[in-house]
């Protein structure tokens, strides 16, 4: 494993004053990756991305170079490169800052991706609520057109690349790549059956790749500094730096760039340690869809393979930290309500399951739970996981199944004492009077 800890690689321009402006960006190595790409064959660019070992930063960790090599060439159809800037996974906030602070980085990545894939049109599908990011991107795209980075003759090379900023309208499911394509085509965002895969039959029935903002923005860096530079961080299977979103009960929540392989405990330290000296109880390693892990797993190196070995997923790099003052069950309820609300309604297990899971959890937190409810939750999750049309359904079960594995005692306390031990909800009318010892009674915001 390479060096671990905080690094400054993809975020190195974040602190440069005015770097969203094209001229300042150019002074700081801007569009150098593109200049290099213009001297390469498309296949060479794809090979460089493959060699770097870059894995998709949108959640699934699929190798980006491999994904690009699947895109069907020579069909007579236009080829599309679509940037997934829908960033909606709870706990994730890395793409938005990148687009706000250094928008040209993404535009440069899109053009390079276009060259690699013989695509002349890119779309940035931006989460609708990201007003400031939209403003920054729109201004940057205008500048890039005016200076000939975009358009009919990219940097005088005779190659064409056009880029459309498309603002969405608020639906988490549109982050799922095939739902995104349906949404971009002006439909409800509902996932598509695969195959056919987007690489052959994506946007408007044409060969398409959908990649996360961070994945696309990484490519010019890889071309500019080389594969070895990228691989100096992380492990063989998870190379490179990662933009981390550290949130929850830490002193300095925020965006940190770290080498993959840094432990979760070190990242908590990086974020100033636990807030007010609280004690770590559980964390979600990569967003709410990734199974939560107990404090004892905090020494796990943050790589795709190590987090998977612990039974969870690296996801988007959204590390959410929670202390002993926070109710696991209530957190799970809120996550479940999120999935219930965001279910697109296409398939039965997720559409109906989300509703029932919320009902059962709500009954538990308000003091009406039954011990059988725990098996009921597991049973419903079992009927959703692997039986849903897309990964949203699977993600819905993650918080529940993992919390029942590690924190069953808290569920049992809710049910036995017929009230929330954290005092978040009024107890059931007939609840016994008890002093809680298992969990601090002082809960909620301090």
């Amino acid at each position, binding site marked *: 494993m390479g060096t671990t800890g905080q690094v400054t690689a993809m975020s190195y321009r974040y602190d440069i004053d005015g770097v969203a402006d094209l001229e300042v960006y150019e002074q700081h190595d801007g569009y150098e990756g593109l200049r290099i790409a213009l001297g390469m064959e498309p296949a060479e660019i794809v090979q460089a991305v493959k060699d770097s070992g870059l894995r998709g930063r949108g959640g699934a960790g699929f190798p980006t170079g491999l994904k690009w090599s699947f895109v069907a060439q020579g069909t*007579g*159809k*236009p080829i599309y490169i679509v940037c997934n800037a829908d*960033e*909606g*996974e*709870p*706990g*994730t*906030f890395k*793409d*938005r800052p990148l687009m706000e602070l250094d928008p040209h980085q993404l535009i440069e990545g899109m053009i390079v991706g276009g060259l690699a894939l013989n695509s*002349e*049109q890119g779309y940035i599908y931006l989460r609708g*609520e*990201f*007003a*400031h990011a939209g*403003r920054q991107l*729109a201004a940057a*795209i*205008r500048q890039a*057109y005016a200076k000939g980075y*975009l358009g009919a003759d990219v940097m005088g090379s005779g190659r*064409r690349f056009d880029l*459309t900023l*498309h*603002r*969405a*309208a608020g*639906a988490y499911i549109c982050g799922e790549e095939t739902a995104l394509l*349906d949404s*971009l*085509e*002006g*439909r*409800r*965002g509902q996932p598509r*059956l695969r195959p*056919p895969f987007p690489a052959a*039959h994506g*946007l*408007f*029935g*044409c060969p398409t790749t959908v990649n996360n903002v961070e994945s696309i923005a990484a490519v010019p860096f890889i071309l500019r500094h080389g594969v070895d530079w990228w691989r100096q961080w992380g492990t063989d299977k998870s190379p490179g730096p990662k933009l981390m*979103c*550290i*949130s929850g*009960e830490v002193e300095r*929540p925020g965006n940190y760039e770290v080498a993959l392989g840094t432990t979760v405990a070190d990242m908590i330290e990086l974020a100033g340690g636990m807030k007010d000296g609280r004690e770590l109880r559980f964390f979600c390693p990569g967003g*709410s869809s990734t199974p939560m892990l107990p404090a004892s797993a905090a020494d796990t190196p943050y790589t795709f393979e190590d987090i998977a070995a612990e039974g969870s997923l690296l996801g988007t790099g959204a590390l*959410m930290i*929670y202390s002993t003052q926070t109710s696991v069950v*209530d*957190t799970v309820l*809120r*996550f479940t309500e999120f999935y219930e609300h965001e279910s*697109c309604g296409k398939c039965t297990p997720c559409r109906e399951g989300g509703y029932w899971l919320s009902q059962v959890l709500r009954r538990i937190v308000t003091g009406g739970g039954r011990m059988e409810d725990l098996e009921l939750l597991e049973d419903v999750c079992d009927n959703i996981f692997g039986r849903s049309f897309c990964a949203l359904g699977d993600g819905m079960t993650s918080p529940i199944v993992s919390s029942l594995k590690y924190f069953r005692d808290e569920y049992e306390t809710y049910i036995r004492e017929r009230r929330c031990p954290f005092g978040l909800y009024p107890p059931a009318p007939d609840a016994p009077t008890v002093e809680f010892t298992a969990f601090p009674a002082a809960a*909620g*915001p301090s």
Partner: protein
Amino acid sequence: MAITETTREEAQALALRYPVARAALLPILHLVQSVDGYVSDEGMALAAEVLGLTRAEVGAVATFYTMYKREPVGNYLLSVCTNPTCKIAGAQAIYEAYVEACGGRHVDPDGAGVMVEHAECLGICDAAPVVQINYEMYGPVTHDEAMGLLNAAKAGEPPASNRSGHVPATFTAVEREFSGIDDGVHDQLVEAARLQAAAAVPPAYRTGETDLPVTHPGGDPSGHGGAAFRAAFDTPPGSPPAPQEQEVVEELAATGTDTAQELAQQVTGDDAATPDAVLPAADQPPVVPSSDPDDATEEA
């Protein structure tokens, strides 16, 4: 304000930025929202008309997305994130206090006019708890600061965001921005879309679970796809399609699926009745027969 001829022209302009017009539906819904302050029935009818869709299709889309509001918002929309990280930082209490301050409702038309809503994770959890005014972010806010934001919005004077430094514009102005109509690269995008629509195999109007390009003749009536399609068939009935189109059609027939052959047959075949039925006369707007089972149910 009401939908005007200008709105229609702007909606048509948005449609031309995409190789297939329907892709402009989300931007157009932002546009109509910027005129009426919500997605009105009139606005949906306009979108349907401009894109050659049924109103049911537009309604199905408009009601799917959180940001399209079906009742007037007023000048300021306040969104409180109540996902766990914000919730444990005090957001739930803020949201409940907001509703109470609006008399137990989610809209308060008095003063500048506000709407309050609870939102899912707004992607800025390091600033928990977070409130947005017209999608401009504020956080972390104390309970009192959050109430101050509501009062300022009601008075029509929201402060600058402590994150972006921007003072939120009114709801309609922000929705206009989201439509992208003023992004400033219109001509470039129209040209790009036109080129794609003229590709050897143009982008398909109907997609989904089929591998057929342009699955029904005359599709995409208002976009480049329609224009490209019409140009390829703009020949007297009976005469063969343009050479380039002929190639595509033959390739299509060679794919072997029944539907592909049927479509190829319609285009090249001697059975003149079929193409006549689906192809518009030269000076008439194209008809849009529906081949999509979804649409069939929507129209039924």
